[in-house]
């Protein structure tokens, strides 16, 4: 399985990420993707061939294997890793959209027109929401998959050495032996632990972003109310009712970007 393309795509994400996000990216690539490719895939390589049942009835091992492993662990992990890394691409796409808008705006109004965004890469306005949603989605995907792992397999996160199976065409309850159960258990716990770490990193980053935005808006409101009280002393009433400060001038686009900041939270 070629994971190299994903690495290439996501190394660009680093530019737009916070420190926590970069740690998350490192954890995902080193402790999840690399361990998956190097170790986990090989451990589950011959899982059906080495799944043997104590019976000579043809079809019995097939049916029992299918009952205990409706979807193989490695396939679920691959899906999980792909889904968990995709939200980061949403952020990259949003920044690319902003840059494209900026470029088209400059083509329309000339190179000296005021810019739409103070800095297209900074997390303001819509980009902040995209980033927040991507974090929540990542945490949700990881939690969802942990729950699926827990419910889908009879041993939950455990891997028993022998399972009892009585599905037709097995003539009676037969013992079926799983290959390398301990090694599989070790890697399952490893993957669960790294998923939990990633969920915690994502939730910490969400808390950090929300907290930072709350503090910023409280500071902004305090400065705005201080400015209003200074304006009442110095400005004629009609300027206040127009909602502009004499120093701001009539730059519509500058106002638009500052309004975006406010609405964006």
């Amino acid at each position: 399985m070629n994971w190299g393309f994903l690495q290439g795509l996501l190394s660009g994400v680093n530019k737009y990420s916070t420190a926590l996000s970069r740690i998350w990216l490192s954890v995902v690539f080193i402790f999840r993707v690399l361990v998956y490719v190097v170790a986990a895939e090989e451990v589950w390589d011959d899982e059906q061939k080495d799944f043997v049942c104590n019976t000579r009835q043809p079809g019995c091992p097939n049916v029992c294997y299918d009952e205990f492993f409706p979807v193989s662990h490695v396939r679920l992990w691959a899906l999980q890793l792909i889904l968990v890394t995709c939200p980061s691409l949403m952020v990259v796409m949003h920044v690319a959209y902003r840059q494209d808008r900026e470029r088209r705006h400059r083509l329309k109004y000339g190179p000296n027109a005021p810019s739409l965004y103070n800095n297209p890469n900074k997390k303001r306005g819509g980009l902040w929401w995209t980033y927040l949603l991507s974090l929540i989605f990542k945490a949700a995907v990881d939690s969802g998959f942990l729950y699926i792992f827990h419910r889908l397999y009879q041993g939950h996160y455990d891997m028993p050495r022998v399972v009892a199976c009585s599905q037709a065409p097995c003539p009676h309850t037969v013992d079926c032996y799983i290959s390398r159960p301990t090694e599989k258990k070790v890697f399952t716990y490893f993957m669960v632990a790294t998923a939990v770490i990633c969920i915690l990193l994502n939730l910490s980053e969400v808390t950090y972003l929300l907290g930072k935005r709350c503090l910023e808006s409280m500071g902004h409101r305090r400065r705005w109310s201080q400015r209003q009280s200074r304006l009442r002393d110095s400005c004629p009433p009609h300027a206040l009712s127009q909602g502009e400060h004499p120093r701001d001038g009539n730059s519509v686009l500058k106002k638009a970007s500052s309004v975006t900041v406010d609405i964006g939270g």
Partner: protein
Amino acid sequence: MSWMFLSDLNGVNKYSTGIGRIWLAVVFIFRLLVYMVAAEHVWKDEQKEFECNIRQTGCENVCFDYFFPISQVRLWALQLIMVSTPSLLVVLHVAYREGREKRYRKKLYVSLGTMDGGLWYTYLISLIVKIGFEIGFLVLFYKLYDGFSVSYLMKCDLKPCPNTVDCFMSKPTEKTIFILFMVTTSCLCIVLNFTELSLLVFKCLIKCYFQKHSSPQCVNSPTSDILNVVR
């Protein structure tokens, strides 16, 4: 095989001492390359070729699982990953310094990769963590497989095996040679890390001793000013 991400560690070369670069070369050439080219193939069909002198279904599975709770190659892969990761701490710290200089728009450090202040501590911690991981994995290896050799015959009497059966390993001598090779390179890496650690600490002590006993003007030297800014 995505081991090629570890080639990003080549960036670590810039911020390492001389011994650090030797360590990096040992890890890449004698451990990673040997692992990829040889060790993986030696253990390729280990379970298929593991045979017990019994026809009871499930006996081989159970005995193999008992003797090899986790395969040696997987343990090595984990060891290589864990041992290479602390070097990234140094790279992250340098990137953090770069970010700080950009944010404040002035030169805060003598140079981004100079081993002073916080970066010195980061480097020291990365060395200690590397030594810890290497020793930890060696001990784990020894405890799990009862030594560093692989015998050709093992006796197993777990259920559902009806009695004590003889189980035969495949390629025991080749596996023993590779295990000893990996243990040797691991010990070499421990020695290199330890030497580097001692040299770093020794150099710092000498520098502090000379700074303390040199003229008072040196206390306000640019080096110590920058050290104070960094701290």
